């Protein structure tokens, strides 16, 4: 199957190497803070946040504290170098933009911030004048999250004072992702189609006609599943379908939560059922509480149409 967004392994490898080439790159020249650390900005921040710690605005209280003088709230670190209402003018393209264009061209078009980690080397005082450098710190391999599939991008910002001493740093992580398909309701999403071939379509046709078949070698009589052209026991290519009785036992099961595929309901149990004839099939349960699933439990196999074109076997687990 091929879709517009599918890639060969080779393409993926090339894309990954291109992405990795951005790691460690600095994004343009250091950004200077527009103003020195100052009382009015501290006051606006403390009022808006409702922060009554006196060391930020009350000189006497600050002098009596371990800080010995007025300090800025440490979590204001980033605010001192924010560009403000006018976007910064960037000359040329920065590695960051080039990286984003590369991600965009691979349909990683959405972005959400996930982590922000600030570390403070010292508290800032009114009069400190900061500048900031930004480096692409790391790029994760492709990950699938509830939001969609994408790459986590971590940038590192280092903040320096007027003496070029580092005063703090910040790791900022975002995920650039392809949005996951919207959760569709059972009414408008159909179950994914099975991959049918010349060698197995007869089995799915049997289900459409309300018959669950097992393949039997006409030479050595061995039963086999899934359907295939050659007997794995005696390599004969002669076979016939026999109808299953429709009873079995849970051999094993998992309950899947993510990633979610439209047309299926989650959490979705997936069972391996040993049919009493001796072959093993994979199927979902029906009319069964998840709590009633257990290895070794007996099941009845029920054929149920999931839509007009598809009928599948389901396991109804005995209480």
């Amino acid at each position, binding site marked *: 199957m091929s879709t517009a967004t599918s890639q060969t392994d080779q393409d993926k490898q090339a894309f990954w190497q291109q992405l990795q080439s951005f790691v460690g790159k600095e994004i343009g020249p250091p950004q200077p803070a527009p103003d020195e650390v100052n009382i009015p*900005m501290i006051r*606006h*921040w403390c*009022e*808006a*946040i*409702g*922060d*009554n*710690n*006196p*060391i930020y605005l009350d000189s006497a*209280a*600050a002098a009596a*504290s*371990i*800080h010995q003088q007025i300090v800025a*709230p*440490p*979590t*204001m670190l*980033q*605010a001192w170098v*924010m*560009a*403000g*209402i006018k976007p910064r003018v960037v000359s040329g393209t920065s590695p960051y933009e080039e990286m984003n264009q590369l991600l965009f061209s691979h349909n990683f078009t959405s972005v959400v*911030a*996930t*982590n*922000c*980690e*600030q*570390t*403070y080397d010292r*508290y800032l005082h009114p009069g400190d004048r900061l500048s900031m450098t930004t480096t692409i710190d790391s790029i994760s391999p492709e990950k699938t999250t509830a939001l969609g599939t994408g790459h986590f991008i971590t940038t590192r910002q280092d903040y320096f004072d007027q003496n070029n001493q580092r005063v703090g740093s910040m790791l900022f992580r975002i995920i650039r992702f392809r949005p996951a398909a919207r959760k569709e309701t059972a009414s408008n999403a159909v179950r994914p189609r099975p991959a049918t071939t010349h060698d197995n379509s007869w089995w799915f046709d049997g289900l459409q006609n309300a018959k669950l078949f097992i393949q039997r070698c006409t030479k050595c009589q061995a039963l086999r599943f899934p359907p295939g052209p050659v007997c794995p026991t005696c390599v004969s290519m002669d076979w016939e379908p026999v109808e299953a009785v429709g009873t079995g036992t849970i051999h094993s099961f998992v309950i899947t939560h993510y990633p979610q595929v439209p047309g299926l309901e989650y959490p979705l149990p997936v069972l391996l059922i040993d049919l009493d004839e001796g072959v093993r099939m994979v199927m979902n349960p029906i009319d069964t509480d998840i709590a009633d699933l257990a290895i070794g439990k007996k099941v009845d196999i029920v054929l149920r149409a999931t839509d007009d074109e598809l009928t599948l076997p389901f396991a109804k687990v005995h209480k």
Partner: protein
Amino acid sequence: MTLLSLTISDVEIGQELPPLDIVLTRTLITATAIASRDYQEVHHDPSIAVERGSQDIIMNILTTNGFVGRYITDWAGPNTFIKSVKVRLGVPNYPGETMKMRGKITATSGNDVTVVVTGSNSMGDHVTATVEIVLP
């Protein structure tokens, strides 16, 4: 309001911080965005926020950091030195929500104390933060 000033002998692992509930008004969300020089429209312009797929304006990340810092010193007082604030972001903070801040001491070593802070609203955790502080 007089803040207490804690020392290392006042704290122990497992101790919980006093809860703090922050009512997130539209004024608070815009005032904190502007106080942090963050003029992105999603923090003050509801129609643009909706156009970009949000249900309303959302509180900015700098403010999330600010509230975590405030929550720590509201409890520990002016002699706290905050070494680091590491936040993991969850659901957005919309106007009309209340962010319930809770915290617990998870580690101490000498004068170093680690506090895990959560801020949750009606939709779940907005923030889970690990804060490292030094107390006298």
